[in-house]
């Protein structure tokens, strides 16, 4: 079964014809070579495939591509060109929040999803906001600290 799907990807309109049941993560990685979106478990538990769909954080391994018709999709490749990303990455660098890096792009997307609805989150808001994204290296504390810093440094951006 093939279907034509229209959506916006990182600010660019796209029209693709594909099986609508294909997983969004495969379409992003295989068709668009957007490999910043990672697959860590394939069942919506680890969050490494997190992308923003109409500003909401979603696990792209659980989403059939047919479900993005008419929606706006942002991946790390789009988000990394924004001022908000600059602030988040600076605070991640300062806090030492990156180790193996596999969870990192989706952690950034989760941070953006959180800050865009809650620009001044508390530590527990941040922990809840990251609870769908697993990290095995850092123990999360340094990521939480970075997002606290970003929310302060990026005052007015969100």
């Amino acid at each position, binding site marked *: 079964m093939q279907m034509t799907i229209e959506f916006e990807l990182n600010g660019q309109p796209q029209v693709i014809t594909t099986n609508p049941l294909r997983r969004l993560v495969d379409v992003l*990685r295989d068709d668009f070579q957007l490999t910043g979106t990672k697959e*860590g478990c394939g069942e919506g538990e680890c969050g490494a495939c997190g992308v923003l769909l109409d500003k909401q954080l979603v696990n792209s391994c659980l989403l059939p591509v047919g479900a993005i018709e008419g929606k706006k999709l942002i991946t790390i490749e789009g988000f990394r060109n924004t001022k908000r990303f600059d602030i988040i990455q600076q605070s991640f*660098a300062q806090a030492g929040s990156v*180790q193996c890096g596999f969870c*990192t792009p989706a952690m950034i997307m989760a941070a953006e999803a959180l800050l865009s609805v809650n620009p001044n989150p508390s530590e527990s808001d941040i922990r809840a906001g990251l609870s769908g994204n697993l*990290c095995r290296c850092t123990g999360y504390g340094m990521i939480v600290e970075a997002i606290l810093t970003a929310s302060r440094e990026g005052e007015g951006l969100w």
Partner: protein
Amino acid sequence: MDRISTPIKRFDFDDKISGQARYCADIILPGMLYARTVRADRPRARIGAIGIPSLPSGYYIIDHRDIPGKNTVPIVYDDQPFFARDTVNYIGEPLLLVVGPDKEVILQIIDSIRIDYLDLDPILSIEAADKRQDDFIFGDQPWFVEYHYSKGDLEQAIQNACHVVEDEYETGYQEQLYLEPQSVLAVFADEQITVYGSIQCPYYVEEALLQALGWPQDRIRVVQLPTGGGFGGKEEFPSILAVHAALASIKTGQPVQLVYDRQEDIICSTKRHPAVIKYKSYLDQEGHILGRRIECKTDAGAYAGLSSVVLQRLILSASGVYNIDNLEVNGRAYATNKMVSGAFRGFGGPQAFFAIEMHMENIARRLNLDPWQFRQKHFLHQDDTSSTGGILKNDIRLDQMAGEIDAMSGYRLKRHNQPQSPDKLFGIGCSFFFHGCGFTGSGERDLIKSRVRLRKYRDNKVQIFVSSTELGQGVLTTLRKIVAESLHIPIDQVVHYYPDTASSPDSGPTVASRTIMIVGRLLQDCCEDMKVRWEEPEFEVFRDYKYPVGLSWDKEKFVGHAYPEYSWGANVVEVEIDPLTCVVDVKGIYAVYDIGTPIDIKIVQGQIEGGLVQGLGYGCIEILNTAGGKVVQNNLTNYIIPTAMDCPPIKCKIIDDNPYPDGPFGARGLGELPVVGVAPALALAVQNAIGKKINKIPLTPEYIMELMHSADDD
């Protein structure tokens, strides 16, 4: 703080944060094929007929018949095949690969493969292995290896003893759960095979390829790609994937990518060894330990793998940070029909320190002694001998660490004044521990023979050539720091890439908390040679490992210095337990470490916090059981690791004035230490809260409930 400890931005940061780092699965080469492994679904069986459907054009089967060299994974013992031939010994053992251009078609082919088995009687636990009289998995005994060592005269100590305290402790499996599943990419071109991948030890992979292919070394190349975590899980295991993918690429003439999905990864990859550890401690009238007998058993799984060396570290750690004059220690690694247990951060240490710290507290409890003072009275000090009789020649700061952690956590005060509440139970526990840095015994000299190389170029850039891998622990940054600081040059002048066996000498595997202490030190020494010749426009220097003067090791009798050096730690964990649900809420972790000089305090903090949380998972929520040889928790929905919501506040202090003279800038090993001490501190906190003796981890609510409703044990 030393200048080298000042944090800098990691060199792998920009690529990783922006999603531009290319991990193995992110690479697509022209004509690349995909592979998937067909695995045994029986714990122990003879393989009968394998029915393969007729394959569409462009699809291939790879199995043991494609191996031109030896079908044996080179580790310690020659018992594990790359592909099963006649028999299978665990659920998940690889039988063959299906290779082709379309992943969906590969799955359809796998669905129509039929395998006949003749089931054999499996051995599924240490207990069952111990009872077995015949039909063993490995030779004519139920274990792969048995070790014994002793110190002093235990028989004499027994005769002088007034008290005897016996305990038995049990620990479970733990899955490394690196976020990036196992993955490799093999490219056969110009009569040469290159394997790229998510790997900890490029030279282990090279050795496996040499053995399987029987080719000369110059036709084999291994390159590490950005790696999404390892924790030991990518130490010995990737050799199997690498050989599989290489055989497929050689047979098809096309690049072959082999990436496991999470379920497959959990089912077939290595795990932390389950262990049973028994103590019998003999004490005098005043509560001084005269001697101790320790018996350790691990569940090694179907093949020997690294179980012998894991067992060595376990038994060498099993007497803890205490000075005991008379010891008899025995250890066995049992063969069972389950996935192979292997390397996992801590490497036998977490099991040993859980058991010894529980036992020390229990002795104090039995004899009505203060557990804190009881521990302190037995602490090791400088110039004492280790459990294998090696003189500990460097300063040991356990007393200072005890003081620091008590001050940070208020342990002693809280311990005796826990609040009373009908709906909350409060508890606090502590642990003291070490981790031997580098390979066990004289392994650095006899087995590893580390070599490092430094090259200076005309533009005054200096390049590091080592086989140490970047797993997230920061090696691409910390080794640069050591070189820049040693040569007094700006760090941007130092070049360091992911290792490639074509250019990086074998400086040893990235394991055993050895990279900074051993490889870093060799680089520092190289810098001394380089400084003398600095005016030369372009040249290279190299250094080989030298065993430190004053150390000795008898690897048969286990006598002497079991490790070149140790790092030390103390943990306190505080918990609140809901007496109805028995859910443990960890309220805080306190930690003090002596790791010598930290090479970048942020990277050190990252190792510590990550290790503590991994250790916390090990102690409570990471449950992995097998049923009939099959992993029950085989995905991330039921194998649970801590999330950001599960992590308590962490307070940490580094002892910063005890540099290790033989380490670079005074650094000792760190990577494994933080994972070692959490589980006992947690378990002792729970024990303190519920007032019942804990004998095993993980501490499930079910187990805690069972204990709470049980009669007092003494």
